[in-house]
């Protein structure tokens, strides 16, 4: 947060407190009373926090909001603070309600004087009535100008409040000052407001002039013009202010509405990010968890799949399968191909190789004998010595095969 923004934030936080000090004589207060006031305006603060807030007001920059006179233990509101508010207030170019009120009072006074003159027992002074009517014309003209100026000024302030390039704190402070300006103006343009009552009364007075047969036609016609002018001015003043309020109100509300800790915290987080980067936020990284497969993941997708398979299997009911001792199969050693090929080679002739192997290994299944025969043929590696015969059936147990017989001849 910039120094100016910080300064404005302190001002905003202590607006009520500073206003109360401004009402003290010489804008002066003892430190003890200052702390009492802080506690009154902020009942949620503890002693330590109250001390810190007082220190913050005394040590604010670019200048101390409260000047500390350590000799007598008093603090004084810095004169620049009132100047600042006045300056900001003037910068708005919104005409103060008190000026409008003075003008309306001028109309009221003139109207009352005219009525008194008409109601006087003697011959009334038409010249005086005419002068008072001129005063009313002037006041009405000024009112219309003020109305126009306020309309423009409020429109400009609306734009300023929308301007994102201006510090948020400054806009908030301005919104507060505008709101203070507009509040009495709002009261002034109500249907039953002071303006409406004065205009109604003055209109009645002007009606009396027009109804009086002793008054000249010129004055009557002037009265009619004034009456129309008053009605026009009253309508314009109210309409201009109403439309201006309508345009600025949403932005004022946005700044003046209560900010929750959620909004304040989000703003603070975004400010930190803007100034120092996201690393300074220290967001708990545990907001997210694993996402798919990652090289350094503590649990890979595969590990989880296996885990699930294991969990599912443990949940399955194990079906016991009966084991019968009678059906146990005996161990059959493999046929030694090298030795068998040498044996075959030593014979000058073997009529049928498969029969030869089957006789030699009676306990082996037919498929093992066929495999051994092929392996031996490969081992002997001499195609010319093989002799192919006719189709012959070979049977062992449930297995049977019908192929051409193969013999060996050296």
């Amino acid at each position, binding site marked *: 947060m910039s120094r100016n923004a910080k300064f404005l934030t302190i001002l905003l936080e202590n607006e009520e407190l500073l206003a109360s000090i401004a009402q003290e004589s010489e804008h002066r207060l003892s430190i003890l009373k200052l702390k009492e006031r802080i506690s009154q305006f902020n009942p949620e603060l503890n002693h330590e926090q109250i001390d810190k807030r007082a220190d913050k007001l005394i040590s604010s920059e670019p200048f101390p909001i409260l000047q500390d006179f350590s000799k007598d233990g008093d603090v004084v509101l810095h004169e620049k603070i009132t100047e600042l508010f006045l300056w900001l207030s003037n910068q708005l170019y919104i005409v103060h309600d008190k000026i409008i009120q003075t003008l309306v009072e001028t109309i009221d006074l003139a109207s009352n004087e005219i009525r008194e003159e008409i109601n006087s027992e003697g011959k009334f002074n038409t010249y005086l009535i005419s002068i008072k009517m001129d005063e009313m014309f002037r006041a009405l003209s000024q009112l219309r100008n003020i109305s126009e100026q306020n309309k423009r000024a409020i429109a400009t302030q609306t734009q300023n409040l929308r301007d994102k390039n201006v510090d948020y704190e400054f806009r908030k402070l301005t919104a507060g000052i505008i709101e203070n300006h507009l509040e009495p103006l709002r009261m002034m343009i109500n249907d039953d407001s002071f303006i409406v009552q004065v205009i109604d009364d003055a209109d009645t007075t002007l009606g009396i002039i027009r109804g009086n047969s002793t008054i000249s036609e010129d004055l009557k016609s002037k009265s009619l013009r004034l009456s129309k002018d008053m009605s026009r001015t009253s309508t314009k003043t109210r309409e201009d202010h109403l439309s201006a309020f309508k345009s600025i109100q949403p*932005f004022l509300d946005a700044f003046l509405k209560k900010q*929750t800790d*959620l909004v304040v915290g989000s703003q603070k987080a975004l400010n930190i990010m803007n100034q120092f980067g996201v690393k300074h936020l220290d967001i708990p990284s545990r907001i997210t968890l694993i996402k798919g497969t990652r090289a350094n993941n503590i649990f890979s997708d595969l590990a989880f799949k296996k885990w699930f398979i294991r969990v599912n299997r443990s949940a399955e009911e194990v079906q016991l399968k009966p084991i019968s001792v009678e059906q146990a199969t005996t161990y059959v050693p493999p046929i030694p191909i090298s030795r068998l090929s040498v044996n075959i080679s030593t014979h000058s002739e073997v009529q049928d190789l498969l029969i030869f192997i089957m006789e030699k290994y009676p306990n082996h299944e037919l498929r093992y004998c066929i495999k051994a025969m092929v392996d031996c043929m490969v081992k002997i590696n001499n195609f010319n010595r093989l002799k192919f015969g006719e189709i012959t059936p070979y049977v062992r147990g449930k297995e049977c095969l019908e192929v051409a017989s193969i013999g060996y001849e050296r």
Partner: protein
Amino acid sequence: MRDRIGSGEFQKLLWGLLKGEHIDIDSEDYTYLEEGFTDFQNSFRSLGFNLKHELGSGFFYLQRIKVADSTEKRHANQISTLFFITVQVLQDKETSKIVIDLPYLLNNNGFPLEHLLSKRTLPNHLSRIFNGIGIKSDEDMISVLTRMQSMKMVEKISDNGIWRFRRGIARLEQLARSYAEETRGEEE
């Protein structure tokens, strides 16, 4: 419980929690987790996670005991930033005196987040923050929202970019409030 553990339903729930889902009170699994909380807590702890129950806001989520890696940190930063910016945008947009708090965010009608957070409508200073965190286009922004949807923190409720927040967002709201408390602590 054992029947459910063996079923695909439990796998789905566990996967969801591990992927960062927030099982809120609107979910059927909420009661299931609530009933077996102690058993689940022990199992998850042995796997290196804490099963957290946000009783007030009404949701469960997992939290890893071990420190996360950089990808995870980046995702966490993106999700949090998107949330902070959303709060700011809603605060600026909301012209009436309505207070922006958790109940406001949990409004069932949702918010046009895709429009509000689009590069076209976002103010420059917020758009710059998005860029800095790696959300450089509207597609990136939608992918962060989609990631949040997979965590059940938000839900897309219409094709024209309307999303609603879910209870799990309370974690981010707490995070934002923690910065406000820090500020107050520093200043007071």
